[in-house]
């Protein structure tokens, strides 16, 4: 043992950690160096799943004030705090009635296995919320196990057909997603099984590119006509959602409302994806926190807040995230990555499997590769069979219950008898960035940074 090691051990250093005398560059840290080396070796950009990994201003940067002299709290466990949400009452004859303010975001059959889609339906139905199809059509498993199912209309129109449109409980016109506003999709060839190929009318085993623009409309004026057609086809029964990636949410939300949406879904840049270029995930779009405020402003300005519902997604992990999104003005939130984790993605029992793929539990993001040891993001029958849709569905239901209970706990602490009564006035920010984005005061001050406030 060297003198340095003796001294370092005494100072808390442990073998395996780099020598503190080796100074890592902030600019060229090990992740950056590894990526340059990978790019030089492979000659193709990195495609991966998951969402943005960079540190961003988020709901963690906000705090609830709680009740005090002037606001009294509700008794936990005894005084009611409702969580019901109605989505789509603006024009639809049959709006969605959800028991909790958390929905499951669109994830395709193709990206996910059939049993994983089934589990999403089981879990959501158990607690009275809805699931969403994804780019690849509606499967009978999913329809059968989801009491309320939102059917996505995407640019690719893979598997789109009027029978499923009529079977759906709501329709979501997808303009973009937070992980890649302005990007299309790519399902790599090794995930194209016979069944996936058939549902998408393409040969087996080839890369399936999903277009980034819709094939039969361009811009908000066309969208209004398109929504009109969807309403006519479904006899004005189904709520119509418009989902946008958080790029220019203030304008996008206003345009979606003017185009006739019942519900607008705004997906922040932390939103997940099954397969997108890393450069796209990390460098396009704005954080969910910033998007919520702009979206709510847009609705309030049109006097449409609560008439057109706002669903926010992108990095919702806890009941605190749910409560803060609602306090800023969302009607509900949507989860994708967190739902997959609840099903069993990145679970420690698959550690060996992840190691074989050069990853580890807690880091696995190669959802595009189709070799998921948890059997979720795969089309390999042997891998998919490792996943139990009933147990996975229960885990998701449990997780959704926890999100709801946590959200109710915070709502009661602020004296609210419905989670929708949470208000931006109940919030303060821990950082100047979060204060500016969410437009709530920096904690301990009445300062909201922004134009005119300096």
């Amino acid at each position, binding site marked *: 043992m060297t003198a340095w090691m003796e001294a370092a051990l005494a100072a808390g250093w442990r073998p395996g950690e780099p020598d503190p005398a080796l100074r890592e560059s902030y600019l060229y840290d090990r992740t950056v160096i590894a990526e340059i080396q990978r790019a030089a070796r492979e*000659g193709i950009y990195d495609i991966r799943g998951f969402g943005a990994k960079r540190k961003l201003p988020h709901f963690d940067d906000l705090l609830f004030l709680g009740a005090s002299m002037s606001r009294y709290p509700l008794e936990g466990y005894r005084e009611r705090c409702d969580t019901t949400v109605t989505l789509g009452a603006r024009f639809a004859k049959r709006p969605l009635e959800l028991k909790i303010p958390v929905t499951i975001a669109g994830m395709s059959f193709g990206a996910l296995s059939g049993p994983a889609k089934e589990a999403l339906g089981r879990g959501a139905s158990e607690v009275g919320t809805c699931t969403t199809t994804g780019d690849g059509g509606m499967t009978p498993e999913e329809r059968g196990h989801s009491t309320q199912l939102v059917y996505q209309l995407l640019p690719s*129109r893979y598997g789109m057909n009027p029978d499923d449109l009529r079977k759906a409980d709501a329709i979501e016109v997808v303009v973009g997603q937070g992980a890649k506003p302005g990007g299309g999709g790519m399902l790599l060839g090794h995930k194209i099984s016979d069944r996936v190929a058939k549902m998408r009318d393409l040969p087996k085993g080839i*890369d399936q590119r999903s277009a980034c623009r819709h094939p039969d409309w361009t811009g908000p004026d066309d969208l209004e006509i398109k929504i009109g*057609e969807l309403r006519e086809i479904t006899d*004005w029964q189904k709520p119509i959602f418009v989902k946008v990636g958080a790029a220019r949410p203030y304008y996008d939300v206003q345009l979606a409302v003017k185009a006739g949406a019942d519900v607008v879904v705004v997906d922040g840049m932390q939103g997940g994806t099954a397969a997108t270029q890393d450069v796209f995930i990390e460098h396009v779009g704005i954080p969910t926190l910033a998007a919520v405020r702009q979206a709510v402003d847009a609705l309030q300005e049109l006097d449409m807040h609560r008439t057109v519902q706002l669903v926010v997604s992108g990095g919702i992990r806890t009941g605190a995230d749910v409560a803060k999104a609602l306090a800023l003005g969302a009607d509900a939130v949507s989860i994708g990555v967190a739902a997959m984790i609840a099903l069993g993605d990145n679970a420690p029992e698959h550690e060996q499997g992840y190691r074989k793929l050069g990853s580890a539990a807690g880091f696995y993001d190669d959802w595009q590769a189709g070799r998921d040891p948890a059997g979720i993001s795969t089309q390999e029958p042997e891998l998919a069979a490792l996943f139990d849709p009933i147990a996975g569905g229960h885990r998701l239901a449990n997780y959704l219950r926890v999100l709801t209970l946590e959200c109710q706990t915070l709502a009661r602490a602020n004296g609210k008898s419905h989670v929708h009564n949470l208000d931006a006035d109940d919030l303060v920010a821990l950082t100047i960035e979060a204060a500016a984005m969410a437009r709530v005061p920096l904690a301990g001050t009445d300062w909201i940074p922004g134009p005119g406030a300096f």
Partner: protein
Amino acid sequence: MSVAERETVDLATTPLRELNQRLHDLAGDAHGPRRWRITNPNGTHAVACGLDAELEVEIDGHVGYYCAGMNKTAIVRVHGNAGPGVAENMMSGRVEIDGDASQYAGATAHGGLLVVHGNTSSRCGISMKGVDICVRGDIGHLSAFMAQTGRLLVCGDAGEALGDSMYEARIYVRGEVAGLGADCIEKEMRPKHLADVAELIEQAGFDGVRPEEFRRYGSARQLYTFKIDNAGAY
């Protein structure tokens, strides 16, 4: 059934919603009227969309966007021009336009037959998924973009970037092609393709064109899996 027994709906006096609801209600009703005439469409959007019954619908005049959208089994004929997205995502049946069709004619359609006796604008047959599209005149640029399966027959000329990024669809063009899109190439007309064309001409009821006058275009299949050597094509 004689013409006199045809159910006539005047869109100048009847709301579109009422018309489409009556047509939709026939999906589960074997006894209602099967032959319909729609007058005064005046460019209305979404006329006769979402049909799901063996109906014959004639439309006297021009229609707006998405006429006969998502059609199943019905026969819809427009005695006029059609706006963008006619017969979009059609599953089966037949949609026929006497005049011209605008952009995205037959977009993403899975089946059935779309016949346009005039010309179409850009993106005819975009992302088509099994439909047959027959155009007596010319088609605009970027037609059959990402076309997956099905057949596109064009008796006139095709615009720039025909068949860009297409998959397994077959394209037959009788006139000039202004330019082929990425990964689209001309292919040999073999006997089965001549038979294909003859069948399409017959189905569409086009006069004055012969199968041997057409040339075939399809995918070179070079972009089916990502190869870095093809980066320049993206």
